[in-house]
């Protein structure tokens, strides 16, 4: 095209970029950025959902009081061994990250991230109500604990299962292709369907698990209402549900590993499990990081499984953060306090997003 003609039609690169970005920016701003800041704003108010709906002036600025009401208590003290098990693990974690860094087995960013996590594990469980004190909100921290427990069980569960499945199904036979599809299929189901399926599975009367237990001569477990099992039940359903994406990511990672390496391994006497440990696993490190962090971010937002399968019970053992936020906001109408909790959740997830960003950019030293 002659230049003078092109000039008339052409936009500068910057203009073109702006125009192309505009639709996204508008939607993003309207439905994400604005609500986010609005949420932060609400969290600084005493804001009753019903009252404000009828009378916009029925809110009062209270500063950080909501945060205090949710996270703090009367006469809270800190003790190095208030919650010995967790805190000792925290201490060991700090020591381990230091040693790993010193011996060169962990990169700097990894070591710092691990050390920080361990430090938090040491510091946070140390807070407890002192003599005559109490938490303002007795359910908040146990709920956070449940959420972390859920994440702590679901993420390794999904990651390890997905990795083993991917390793087993990585190949070109038809059977493997069919199985890959089958295992991925659960991913496309909605949480309602998933929980329904698993409620049936776990049912002590006609459930598959109960039938198997009875066949083996045991008495069936009442999964969803037994305190020790409810969380496990939710985690199992979640693993089954969110296996697909992780498996696909691992399959992509596996296909990135050159077949030559396995042939070199075969000559070096590294086959089977040895090959998996010494060749596959180290080369999947990046994929594992991505999967783990994505799963952490995803599973901190768990809601449906707990809400639909156990209603947070029994005895609050499966009450999770998002469900608590939901109840506080829409059952108790305490929008201010719920927003404060939401901001807390945002900080946790934001931290993991940053971690993923940093790890993603970290080069192999």
């Amino acid at each position, binding site marked *: 095209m002659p230049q003078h003609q092109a000039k008339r039609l052409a936009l500068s690169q910057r203009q073109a970029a702006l125009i192309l970005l505009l639709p996204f920016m508008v939607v993003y701003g309207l439905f994400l950025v604005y609500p986010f800041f609005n949420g932060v704003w609400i969290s600084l108010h005493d804001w009753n959902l019903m009252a404000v709906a009828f009378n916009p002036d029925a809110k009062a600025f209270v500063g950080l009081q909501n945060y205090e009401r949710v996270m703090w208590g009367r006469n809270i003290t800190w003790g190095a061994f208030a919650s010995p098990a967790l805190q000792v693990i925290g201490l060991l974690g700090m020591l381990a990250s230091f040693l790993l860094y010193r011996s060169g087995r962990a990169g700097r960013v990894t070591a710092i991230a691990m050390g920080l996590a361990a430090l938090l594990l040491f510091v946070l469980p140390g807070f407890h109500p002192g003599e005559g004190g109490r938490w303002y909100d007795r359910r908040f921290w146990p709920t956070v604990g449940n959420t972390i427990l859920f994440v702590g069980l679901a993420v390794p569960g999904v990651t390890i299962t997905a990795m083993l499945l991917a390793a087993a199904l990585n190949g070109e036979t038809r059977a493997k292709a069919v199985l890959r599809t089958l295992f991925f299929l659960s991913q496309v189901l909605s949480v309602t369907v998933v929980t329904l399926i698993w409620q049936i599975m776990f049912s002590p009367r006609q459930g598959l698990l109960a039938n198997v237990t009875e066949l083996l001569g045991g008495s069936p477990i009442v999964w969803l209402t037994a305190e020790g099992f409810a969380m496990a039940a939710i985690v199992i359903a979640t693993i089954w549900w969110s296996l697909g994406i992780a498996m696909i990511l691992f399959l992509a990672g596996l296909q990135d590993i050159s077949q030559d390496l396995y042939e*070199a391994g*075969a*000559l*070096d*006497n590294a*086959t089977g499990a*040895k090959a998996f440990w010494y060749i596959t696993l*180290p*080369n999947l490190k990046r994929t594992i990081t991505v999967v783990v962090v994505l799963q952490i971010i995803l599973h901190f937002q768990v809601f449906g499984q707990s809400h639909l399968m156990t209603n947070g019970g029994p005895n609050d053992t499966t009450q999770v953060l998002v469900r608590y936020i939901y109840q506080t906001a829409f059952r108790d109408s305490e929008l201010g306090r719920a927003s404060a909790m939401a901001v807390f959740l945002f900080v946790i997830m934001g931290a993991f997003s940053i971690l993923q960003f940093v790890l993603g950019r970290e080069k*192999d030293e």
Partner: protein
Amino acid sequence: MSGVTLSNVTKKYGQVQVIHGLDLQIEDGEFCVFVGPSGCGKSTLMRMVAGLEETTAGQITIGARDVTRLDPSQRGVAMVFQTYALYPHMNVAENMGFGLRMNGVPKDEITAKVAEAARILKLEPLLDRKPKALSGGQRQRVAIGRTIVRGPEVFLFDEPLSNLDAELRVDMRVEIATLHKQLGATMIYVTHDQVEAMTLADKIVVLRDGRIEQVGAPLDLYRDPDNRFVAGFIGSPAMNFLAGHITDGQLSIPALPDAPTLPLRLPTDRTKIDFGIRPEHLRIDPAGAGFRLHLVEKLGGTSYAHLHAPTGERLIVAEDGESDLSDDMDVGITFDPKRAFLFDTKSGMRLR
């Protein structure tokens, strides 16, 4: 150290047979090169020796051991891959020591062997680096180092130089030749580059379509090819061929007006033949006629003159020094009939 014997070795992928019952004896300490065009089965054959491909039928022995059904790691072979296949997450020292580590060799022994191999290959300053931080030539050396550390009975090289640039290729070729002298081990080397084959080999095995065309020392193949394929494959530039036929014991080659008298017994029945002569055995006769000089490539030390015969066939003549010929001249050619070959067009076999 020990030799390798293949007897009636066959490879089939499903119904497709790619190696057709080969017999081959590689002596202890010999440098044997498998050469041939792509798809001739040379890599497959080497991978069968390594155990990376299953042998469908026949027997492979290394030394006195029948290794046909053994795992790759138990055969006493080590291999340099075309892509080097270095473990990307291990540094150079770990890469070289990995095989020993997997076989439960004590740590200090591994360190000593890695250090020795690093010394031979001048890799000492690189031992802590990851493969990513190495140049192509360095990676190649690490891959070779990995095989040395293993101390195998047989070294296998699968087109090891094909990923290097031309200059480095020449250097590495010399290094591999030196290494063979130093170690005196049996080596099998796969390449499609006949120059590599000629310069490195004690014994060349020319393969085509899963069959051995000829086995012999490089110069024997050059001087005395058994068939048209070997004659055309060995030597650079390739041998010139002119079509002709024999009628009533009389040789006639349309491109050459006066048919040469060759010192061999011609068949009496009518046969189509290919007349072969190497570019370096042809001379240009500026006074002669019949061939049009199409192009002269002047390389300094040698010149390659590309000629067009009246029949449309093409010839290359290699001349020493800087040729003073110019394009589009009409010239003739001369040669020593003793240097010429005749091949049966149909079977490709040489007429002797």
